[in-house]
């Protein structure tokens, strides 16, 4: 095969790369465009469509953007955190109630927990209640899943939970918020052996440079299976839990690729009609140091024996590993049950930090096909020197909303698939 030598300047991080995706709009969110991993869409009174966005770090708490016209997103509210050592990295909205997670930099600080806001007037969110998860060993809540209006499923510490290793402070907790002014804990589960006093031995940790913790990350429960929780438990792997009795949660499935892989399982997305799971890792080191961070396809026909059958085709290492910042898998659009969410058992959309947002067709689960991507050029003054797309939400009109981890803010994209 003839090889064409490539123009070297073309791989620069300031260059936008696109395949079958078109930028409809970009909004830097008034200069506070370092966004976390919470994107949720509210269909408010009069059909207004409000995109709620969590921030990666202080000073901002959360931001509301009116995307009724996705070509001209308009920021309508941006709230402040009480201090700089807390972050609200995750949120979800159901109806007019917004749940926001609070995680502190070190254990013992406040606020560490969950806020519920009334956003019936999106411009002026009103606090309904705060559920405190702070404690001497707790950093509070990293991620929330709130889709049914009744339960918040979350990765959280607790005042009464002392982990054997400080990296293992956040476990799976269920809050009953059916009375939003008075949330109460409805259930909890942690990786056996991670809590001080557990009868089980402490789990074998990954080598120190990849030891990121045996703790919960995404804790998803879908209306198709209200008796199952789909959990990414970071270095602990992927779990499916039987939560039919929330006071007595049982493990139904467990799968982990690490070791030999480098840990950090982030999301378990079940494709219910096909008996498949899509499991994403999270890249947490710059410059490809923890490569490969992948998205995995798992055959889940036998709940007791999940079998990996492939990985999604990853963006090329040579083009991205040294492009700046992190390179690898992170959040996926999670087929949320809400009225404004895209749902597909075949099309999967994910963010890959400096490799942008990517769209896959999983019709053949053994040979997943990449069908679209958009890699924005580096945002101005980005400390990573490259885009770091952190999270993605796809609405029912297949408009893709994705956010940068540092400064880039919100990118609204159209798929041509």
């Amino acid at each position: 095969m003839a090889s064409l030598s490539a123009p070297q300047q073309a791989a620069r991080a300031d260059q936008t790369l696109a395949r079958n995706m078109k930028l409809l709009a970009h909004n830097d969110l008034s200069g506070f465009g370092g966004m976390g991993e919470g994107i949720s869409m509210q269909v408010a009174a009069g059909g207004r469509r409000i995109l709620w966005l969590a921030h990666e770090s202080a000073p901002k708490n959360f931001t509301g953007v009116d995307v009724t016209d996705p070509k001209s997103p308009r920021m309508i509210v941006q709230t402040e955190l009480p201090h700089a050592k807390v972050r609200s990295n995750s949120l979800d909205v159901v109806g007019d109630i917004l749940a926001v997670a609070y995680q502190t930099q070190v254990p013992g600080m406040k606020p560490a927990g969950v806020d519920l806001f009334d956003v019936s007037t999106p411009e002026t969110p009103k606090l309904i209640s705060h559920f405190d998860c702070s404690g001497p060993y707790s950093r509070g809540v990293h991620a929330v899943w709130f889709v049914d209006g009744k339960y918040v499923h979350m990765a959280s510490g607790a005042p009464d939970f002392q982990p054997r290793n400080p990296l293992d402070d956040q476990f799976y907790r269920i809050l009953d918020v059916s009375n939003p002014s008075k949330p109460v804990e409805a259930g909890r589960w942690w990786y056996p052996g991670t809590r001080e006093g557990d009868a089980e031995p402490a789990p074998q940790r990954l080598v120190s440079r990849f030891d990121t913790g045996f703790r919960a990350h995404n804790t998803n429960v879908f209306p198709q299976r209200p008796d199952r929780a789909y959990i990414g438990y970071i270095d602990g792997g992927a779990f499916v839990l039987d939560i039919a009795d929330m006071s007595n949660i049982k493990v139904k499935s467990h799968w982990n690729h690490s070791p030999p892989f480098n840990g950090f399982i982030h999301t378990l997305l079940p494709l219910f009609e096909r008996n498949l799971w899509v499991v994403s890792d999270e890249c947490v080191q710059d410059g490809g140091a923890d490569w490969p961070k992948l998205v995995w396809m798992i055959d889940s026909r036998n709940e007791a024996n999940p079998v990996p059958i492939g990985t999604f085709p990853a963006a090329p290492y040579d083009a991205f590993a040294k492009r700046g910042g992190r390179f690898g898998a992170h959040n996926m659009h999670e087929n949320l049950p809400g009225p404004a969410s895209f749902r597909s058992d075949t099309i999967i959309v994910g963010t890959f930090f400096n490799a942008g947002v990517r769209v896959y067709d999983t019709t053949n689960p053994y040979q997943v096909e990449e069908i679209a991507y958009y890699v924005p050029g580096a945002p101005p003054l980005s400390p990573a020197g490259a885009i770091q797309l952190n999270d993605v939400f796809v609405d029912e009109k297949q408009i893709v909303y994705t956010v940068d981890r540092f400064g880039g803010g919100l990118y609204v994209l159209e798929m041509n698939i």
Partner: protein
Amino acid sequence: MASGRDPLAGKLPVTLITGFLGAGKTTLISKLVRHPDMNRVAVVINEIGEIGIDHDLVTLSSENISLLANGCICCTVRTDLQETLRELFNLRRAGLMADFDRVIVETTGMADPAPVVQTMVSDTLLQAQFRLDGVVTLVDAVNGAYLLEHQPEAGKQVALADRVLITKGDLASAEQIASLEATIHAINQQTDIRHVRMGEIAPSELIGLGLGSARANDSTLRFLGESLDAGAAEGERYLGARTTRHDPRIGTLSLRFDAPFTWDTFSAALQLLTNLRGPDMLRVKGIVNVEGKPVVVQGVQHIFHPPVTLDRWPSEDHGTRLVFITRAISADSIRGLFQAVGAITTPA
């Protein structure tokens, strides 16, 4: 939850520019690559020296790929077009070259465009990642008529053209041009003829000629051609007496079938036709009623693009309508063949 994917939407459109030596391809390409609307377009050319872009280069990047100040990428063919298109896709996919959304290919002057079209359909990578958007053929107003008479490839270039650009019109008389247009339409009744002066053309005139989506819309009808409009006459089309200078056996046939086909019947009939007369079937294009569903077919000689099932009929007319450009095959014989195959595949 079906994927609902449009099999054509994600493919990179490719326009082929053909035309005999002296038809003005180099002049057109050298102006085209500098056009401000050429950002994110890759142009595959035979010889970069000919178009003199040295002053417009951002950098002289490599032997055969150059990025111009307007964002246009110029790529010289090193071995063959097949490898060049494969490499362009791979380099772009790897983020190792500037991004592009479409490709325009300058074919060599003597080229019969049919093998190029066939390559795009038969190479698995090219077929998966690219789609032929259209063939644009340049015809020189002064020498075009002579070439159409004496060079079979010139006739094929016109037969396969979605659009014909007549160049050097300022050097020919009005009668010469009218006669040339009639000759072109006698070969390819559906093609759209435009005039270009000194290679001045907007990129938009070279694109959007093919079927870009399986979702039926106005452009689907445009792609299928005016002759599919209600009221269009059926049969062989010969436009006047001035058309005898080209090979008179080449012409456009329009056929209509009102009864739906099964895919087996339709494809068997087409297969038989291409087996027997492939070299004389210069081009086939149309919409087929396959058990009620609209299926777009197009082919060049014995090679067919993958059939595309549209999401709905693009108009009220649900009949099968096919346009053939053939050499010495009559409409009646094609119709007879389809009817015979239909009869034999339907149990009595």
